[in-house]
Every structure is written in C-alpha cells, then in structure tokens.
C-alpha cells in the first residue's frame, strides 16, 4: 500500500474531503487555463452591464415614484413603490390617448409598411433574379440606395413636397406649383408615414428575397414545366412556397423595425397629433414622465420580441427547404417578352420616387432663401457657406461655417468610428467565445445575451439607457450627457450584428488554425494577434462599415440621450426641423447622405477584394 493511501485510511473522512477539494481546485485551475472561458466570463459581465442591468433599472423605475410625478399626483412620494404609472398607462382615464391609439397607429403603420415593402421588394427581387429584365446589374445595385440613406430623409422630402400652410408652417412645393393646399391626410399622418417608410424599407425585402431566389435551383421549376404546368402555376406552387420563409422574415423584420422608428412618425405624425408608440415614448420622456415612457417601451419591446421570436421559430422549420444547394446548380432567366421595357420604366419610376425625387427636393430646399419660395430667382448658398447674418435664421452661419454643425459632424464621425470599432472588436471576441465554447452553457448565454438588443426597438433602447445612466451607479458617475454613453448605446445596439458576423467568421476560421499555433508554442496573446485577429479582420471590415453607416444615420436610438455637447448631425437635423429651419435640416441631411453613400461605396469596393478570392 502506498504511504499516502495508508494515511487516508487512518483519517478517512478528512482524507476524502481533502482529496475532493484538491480535485475541485485543480479542475477549476485547468478550467481557467482555457482562454475562451476567461473571455466568455468577461463578455458575460460586460453584456450583463450593457443589456440586462439597464432593463432591470427600467423595470424598477416604472414602479417607483419619480420627483417629477408631483405634477401628476398629489400622493407622490418620490422613491417609494407605486403602481401609479402602470395604472396610468393601462387603466386610467388617459389610457386611450397614451396607449391604445398610439398602439393602434404603430401597428397599423407597421403593417402597412411591411405589406407594401414586401410586395415591392419581392417583385423587384424576382424581376432581377429570375427574368431577362434589361440592366439587371444596375437595378440590383441601385435598389439598395433608399435603404442606405436615413429613413427620416424620406419624411423630410415628403414634407418639402406636400406640407400645407395650415398646420403651423409654410407651404411645400406642391402648393407652390399648383396653388392648391394639400389636405391634411396627404400632408401628415398615416398615408405619408406608410408611403415614405415603404419607400425606405422595400430594399430590405429585396435583399432577403433575392438571396432566397438565387439559392433555388431553377431545375426545380423546370421539372414543373416538363410536367406541363403553366408559368403562373409554377410561380404559385413551386417558386412561391420556396421563398416563403424569406418573405415571412422580411415581413416580420420590417414590421419590428418600423415599430421602433422614431424620426418619420415624429416629423409626419406629431404636427397633427398622430402619435405612435415611439413618438409617445419620446414625448413622455421629454415631458418628464419617464416612467410612463418606460412602460410604453416595454410594450414596444414585448411586441417586437414576440414577432421576432415567431419569425425565428418559423425560419427554423423552413430552413430545410430554403437551402437547396449541391452540384449542377443553375438559374435560368424567364423571358418577360413585351413586358420587359414597361417593367424597366416602372422600376425607374420607383427609383425616382424613392431616391431621385427626395434627394432633389432636399437639395433644392437647401438653396432656397425663403422656405416657401422655390423659384430660381431666390436661390442662395447662404445656408451652406453664408456668414452669420442676423436677417436670416436668427443669425446662424451656413452649415459649412457653423461651428455648432461642424462640431456635430465631428461628433458623428467620432461616434460612428469608435462605436463601429468597439462593436466590431467585441463581435470578434463574442465569435471567439461562442465558437470555442460551443455546446457549453457559458457560450450559449454569451450568444443569447449579445442577441438581446436586437429585440429592443431603437427608441426603447435609448429609454433603457436613459433610465440607467441618468443617475450615478455605485462608483460610476452618471453617464448621462457624456459622449461615452452615446458610444455605449450604439455599441450595445449593434452587437447582435457584429456578434453574428464574428461567429460566422470564427466558424470559417475553425479551431485548428489556432491549435496549430498553440502546438508550436504560441501564447494566447500571440495567437490572437497573429492568427485570429488578421483572419477575422478580413471578414469584419464590411461589418465594421455597416455599423459605421448605421450609427452615422442613427436617430431613434440616441435622440433621448444627446445633450448640446454630444449632439450629432442627425440630432441637429431633428432640432432644426423642429424649429422650422428646413434649409438647415435639409443641408445637414445632404451632408449625412454624402458621408453614408461614401461609406457604402467603400464597403462595396472592399467586398470585391474580399479574402475569399485570395
């Protein structure tokens, strides 16, 4: 018997416990030798802090009397628990105005936009992917443009065109040209919101359905043809069911995005007191009833996460028949015959309505001296390059000379750069942790947590951050009003995208490339620098630019969080538009479009030189 065993035999209980302790300790020690475990744990802490904690704080605040509530109720005791806010939203005399009508408006506009965007986008996708439409390549690359520019730009353009002089403003181009004052329903409310957002969102469906269509082997359709089916029958019974999952998810994703959109319903809805949930959240928070805003944000989050959850369930089932790959895969174009050019003309018209016209209107507006005078005689560069002049715009200088706007432009660029870099880097780490720790609970929680911000509409996410960071938390000072907070919210909101991208690229890289370096004696830091980072960077660049563009045009997410020091181009547009300086807001919009389109062009360039060809 070895001596150690003899000793244990003498004191069995103690011995066994000791041995087990040693074992546990050594297990834990080897467990933490895996770098991905350490990274996962760090990520978990970060994610808890930027995703879960704000949510918890918002829940708490909705149940607690706030100082500002003194205006609403005499019984308020700041800091104490109350159901006041929940009652106010769900069962009070104002429920109709606070909740029901905005909810109805949100859902009806979202539905309208989803339907139109889906029909336009899917039809366009089919024309481009499956027919002999002329100039298909150009059509395909131009079709995404409306989606690249910020969504509220369509709203601003609509206003320039159709606003009437009855509702506290000046007449638009339509009235200027025809002398007829457009009716309110044409200028504001449901119709313009649905029209402008549909024009903004149809490219989203276009992209998803194009991808689905180009993954269907056209021999599936041909075998229908051989069996004697007519063309429409094939479309209806073969092609349509095959792209149904893509259609459904584009519908649902558009729906949830429109739900969270703030700019367009604000510009086109609020002047006629047409509120959606997102604008209602904003006005409640601005009017210092944040708890009510938070509760409405919950409603928004609940709807949005439900539809996305439903979508994921359905996609999960549909997946099996969407990805039909394999050998001998080919796509045959369906001849359109005499309809070729009529379709092309319709597409050009659509493109004019979605891109050319809005951009022209906005650009023209920037040159008008008086906001309601669109004649050539009164064109001016004042709002671009003019010196401060007290006769116009309360003495503000043209945007290229205006320190406030140049400051905002720097803020925007700084914000977009830091947020996309940080989000991209975190995405790589998330990808590493998730792929390395596949099938472990730890990796699973990292993946799920990083996906959560996707369920939260932009305006509600802003509200979450407002709830948490307007006070100091323990040793942390109140972050409200800091640039860091805006960066943080943009990083968090974009994590679902960069995290996904990180996971995909890490899956492509595979484990063995890192392990090969490990067996050659490389430490983790070296493996990360020399192997993982360079390899995932190639895939991450287009994701990085995507986030850059998204942040550059972000309004809904940050509108609740910016202060005069941290304002960005988008929020400046918003302020000027609110105050009626449409020339300024238009000029800044042009600037944003310019930056965003440049970013898009760079990403296209990089995509062509992507490492896949190397």
């Amino acid at each position: 018997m070895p001596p150690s065993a003899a000793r244990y035999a003498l004191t069995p209980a103690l011995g066994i416990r000791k041995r087990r302790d040693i074992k546990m300790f050594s297990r834990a020690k080897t467990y933490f030798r895996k770098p991905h475990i350490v990274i996962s744990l760090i990520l978990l802490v970060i994610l808890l802090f930027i995703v879960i904690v704000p949510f918890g704080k918002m829940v708490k605040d909705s149940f607690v009397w706030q100082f500002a509530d003194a205006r609403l109720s005499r019984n308020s005791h700041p800091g104490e628990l109350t159901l006041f806010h929940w009652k106010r939203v769900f069962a009070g005399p104002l429920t109709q105005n606070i909740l029901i009508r905005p909810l109805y408006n949100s859902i009806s506009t979202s539905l309208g936009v989803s339907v139109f965007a889906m029909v336009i986008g899917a039809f366009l996708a089919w024309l481009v992917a499956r027919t002999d439409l002329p100039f298909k390549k150009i059509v395909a690359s131009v079709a995404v443009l409306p989606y690249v520019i910020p969504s509220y730009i369509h709203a601003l353009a609509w206003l320039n065109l159709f606003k009437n002089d009855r509702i506290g403003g000046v007449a638009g181009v339509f009235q200027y040209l025809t002398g007829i004052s457009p009716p309110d329903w044409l200028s504001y409310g449901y119709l313009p919101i649905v029209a402008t957002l549909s024009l903004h969102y149809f490219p989203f469906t276009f992209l998803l359905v194009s991808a689905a269509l180009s993954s269907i082997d056209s021999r599936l359709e041909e075998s229908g043809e051989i069996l004697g089916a007519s063309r429409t029958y094939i479309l209806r019974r073969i092609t349509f069911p095959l792209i149904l999952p893509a259609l459904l998810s584009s519908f649902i994703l558009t729906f949830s995005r429109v739900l969270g959109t703030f700019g367009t319903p604000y510009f086109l809805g609020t002047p006629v007191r047409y509120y959606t949930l997102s604008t209602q959240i904003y006005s409640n928070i601005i009017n210092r009833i944040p708890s009510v805003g938070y509760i409405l944000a919950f409603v928004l989050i609940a709807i949005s996460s439900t539809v996305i959850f439903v979508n994921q369930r359905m996609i999960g089932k549909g997946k099996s028949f969407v990805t039909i790959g394999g050998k001998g895969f080919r796509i045959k174009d369906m001849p359109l015959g005499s309809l070729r050019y009529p379709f092309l003309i319709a597409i050009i018209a659509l493109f004019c309505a979605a891109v050319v016209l809005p951009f022209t209107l906005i650009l023209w507006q920037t040159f008008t001296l008086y906001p309601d005078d669109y004649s050539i005689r009164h064109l001016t560069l004042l709002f671009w390059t003019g010196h401060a002049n007290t006769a116009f715009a309360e003495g503000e200088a043209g945007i290229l000379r205006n320190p406030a706007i140049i400051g905002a432009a720097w803020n925007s660029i700084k914000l977009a750069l830091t947020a996309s870099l940080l989000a991209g880097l975190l995405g790589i780490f998330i990808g590493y942790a998730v792929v390395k720790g596949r099938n472990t609970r730890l990796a699973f929680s990292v993946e799920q947590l990083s996906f959560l911000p996707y369920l939260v509409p932009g305006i509600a996410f802003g509200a979450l951050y407002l709830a948490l960071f307007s006070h100091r938390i323990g040793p942390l000072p109140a972050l409200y009003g800091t640039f860091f907070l805006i960066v943080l919210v943009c990083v968090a909101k974009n994590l679902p995208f960069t995290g996904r991208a990180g996971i995909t690229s890490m899956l492509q890289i595979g484990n063995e490339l890192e392990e090969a370096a490990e067996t050659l004696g490389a430490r983790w830091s070296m493996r990360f620098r020399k192997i993982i980072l360079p390899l995932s960077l190639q895939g991450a660049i287009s994701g990085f630019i995507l986030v850059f563009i998204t942040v550059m045009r972000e309004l809904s997410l940050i509108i609740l969080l910016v202060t005069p020091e941290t304002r960005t181009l988008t929020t400046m547009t918003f302020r000027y538009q609110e105050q009626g300086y449409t020339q300024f807001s238009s000029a800044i919009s042009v600037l944003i479009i310019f930056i965003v389109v440049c970013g898009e062009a760079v990403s296209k360039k990089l995509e062509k030189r992507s490492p896949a060809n190397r």
Partner: protein
Amino acid sequence: MAAPIIEVRNLTKVFGTVVAVDNVSFSMEEKDFLVLLGPSGCGKTTVLRMIAGLEIPTAGEIYLKGRLVYSDEKGIFVPAREREVGLVFQSYALWPHMTVSENIAFGLKVKGMKAAAIEEKTAAITAYMQLDGLRNRYPQEMSGGQQQRVALARMLVSQPDIFLMDEPLSNLDAKLRLEMRAEIKNLHIQTGATTVYVTHDQVEGQTMASQVAVINNGILEQLSSPKTIYKRPANLFVADFIGSPAINLIEGATGAIDTEEGTTVSLERDFWKAATLYKNIQSGRDIIAAIRPENIAVVPEEGFNTIPATVKTVLPSGSETVLRVNQGDLTLSVLMTREVELFPGQHINLYLPPEHLLLFDKATGQLLNLPEKTN
C-alpha cells in the same frame, strides 16, 4: 531502462454524458510508430488531442518523455504550447494569410529565434521538403499534396521528438496518398521521432505502423503489431474491422472431429463441420468462427474440410477476384489472386484450412485461446 517517450494511463474523456475515451492505457518507446485505428467517432482523435494538450482529459495520466503533463489526481495540466510535440492536422491548418515561408517560420519566431537563424532553418526545411519554388505562395494557391508538405515542414522545423498526426492523408486523392504514405514513413525513419498516427483507413494503418491500436467506442480493443492484429484479432470487432473484403463470420457450435493428427475441436453447422487447430474446448459451446476471404480455397473435389457452395456473384478487379458464394443460408466472400473461370449458379467446393479458422466466444466476442505452437 529509459522511460517511455509517451505513456498514457487510464486516460478517460467524457463529453457531457458521452464517454469518448474510456480508460485507455499504452506506452511507447523511442522510434515507435503507433497507429490509432478505428471507425470515425471512436475517440481516436480525442486521444491524440489529449496527448497534444488541446483537450483536457477527464481522468488519467499522461507522461511525455518522462514528464507528467496531465494528471487529474495531482491537478497537473501542461498546456499544448509547453509540450513540444509536433502536430499535423487533417485539414493541415495552414494559415491562409501567411506565405509558405511565414507558415514555416512561425514556430521559430515564437521561440524568439533570430531572423538569420530562422531564415536558414526555413530554407533548409523547404529544400528538404521540395518546396523551394513555392516559398512565397499562399496555401490556397497550392495543391493538396503541396499543402501537406508545408504542414509537415512546419512541424519538422521545430524538431520535436514526438510527431502527432491526425488523418494527415485523408484529404488527398488515392495516388498522392500512396506517395505521401511512403514519404511520411521515410520521415519517421530519418528523424526517429516517436509517432502517433490517427487514421480510419486500415490499409494505411497496417502499412505504416510498428504498433496498431484498434479503438472502438472509446475502448482500446487491441494493441499489437499489424501482423498480429490481422492474423490474431483479439475480438470480433477487430476481426471484422480489419481486412477488405471483410472477414467471413460463421455462427456455429463446437464439436469434435477426427483428423490425421487425432481428435480436434471442430466448427459445426447444421449440415457440415470443419476441423480447427483448437484443443480442449468442450463440445456444444456457441461460437462464431472467422476466416479471411483469401484463406478460403476453391478446390475441384470434395475432401478434408471442404464444404459445398454455390457461386452467387463474381467480382473481378484486375489482379484479384472476389467471389460471393452461398453455403446454405450463409454468404461467404472468397478472394482469389488468380484468374478464375467461374459463373453464377455454379457448384463448387470450398476448402477451409484448419490453421486459418479462428473461433470466438459468441457471448463475449473474445478470441478463444489457440494452442501455443501454432503459427
């Protein structure tokens, strides 16, 4: 006696509820070439990865060159980068963003070697592996065989004493595989490195190994020389797994038969019996007999240990012909190395040489003990 180069004791790995490697022990001396052979998913790669330090075992101990690198009892785990073993992956795992030279030089840079020395060593190894013209290529710009060479060069340049190879040839086409097989064997002889080689290809395993370990469901079924594995499989799994076409398995019972050398144990079926070289096995025991297809002979007449059969299919393939024949409800394979003039439906006689009939216990699947003197 010097310590073994690799020693694995009671190695066990559990993934969730699946026991991937179950209490495996073996040890290897200098210059040994051990092939871990088994069907895919049997745990052989996991064994290799645990030796490399890429996978943390659940229990057991691993010694490399006398140094304890893993012990769950003592809480020791030396990570892969400190184990100084060379590993070649099935996918080669060449870094796509580095040239051939950069790939090879990586391990030397990690060690902090001077640039001039790195250059010299890299040049030497590329010349040795016949990669001279390809030094500035990226891995994607090369053929599978060339990539394989780069992977070997990358491992060799650090001069490890232990080579670990995980199905290194499975991504190559058949012709190239034969070439590389010879090359790897050559490399082993020249370097004298102790090698653990994982494959599911039994021919590959047999040709390269000094020792073969057959693994199934995480269990080490048999560890012997290739010849023993083939001629004396320890159990039915090994018998069935090794050899192509597969060994013929015949269910039956033991009996007694009188031969020129006296009474011996026989294999008994309903309508025939065949003598074996076994002794001292009680009659009536349920067994499974096994005989390799190439050990069955087609003979013109009935005689000692022959059984009648009917030809079912004739599968000629160049130098050899495989016959599928029926014997009652049995179907047997016969491998013939000469040309045969046989046709389906023809009645033939098969001779089952007693020295090639192996008997396995039906209940345990283990090989029954043959008398020592034979073979």
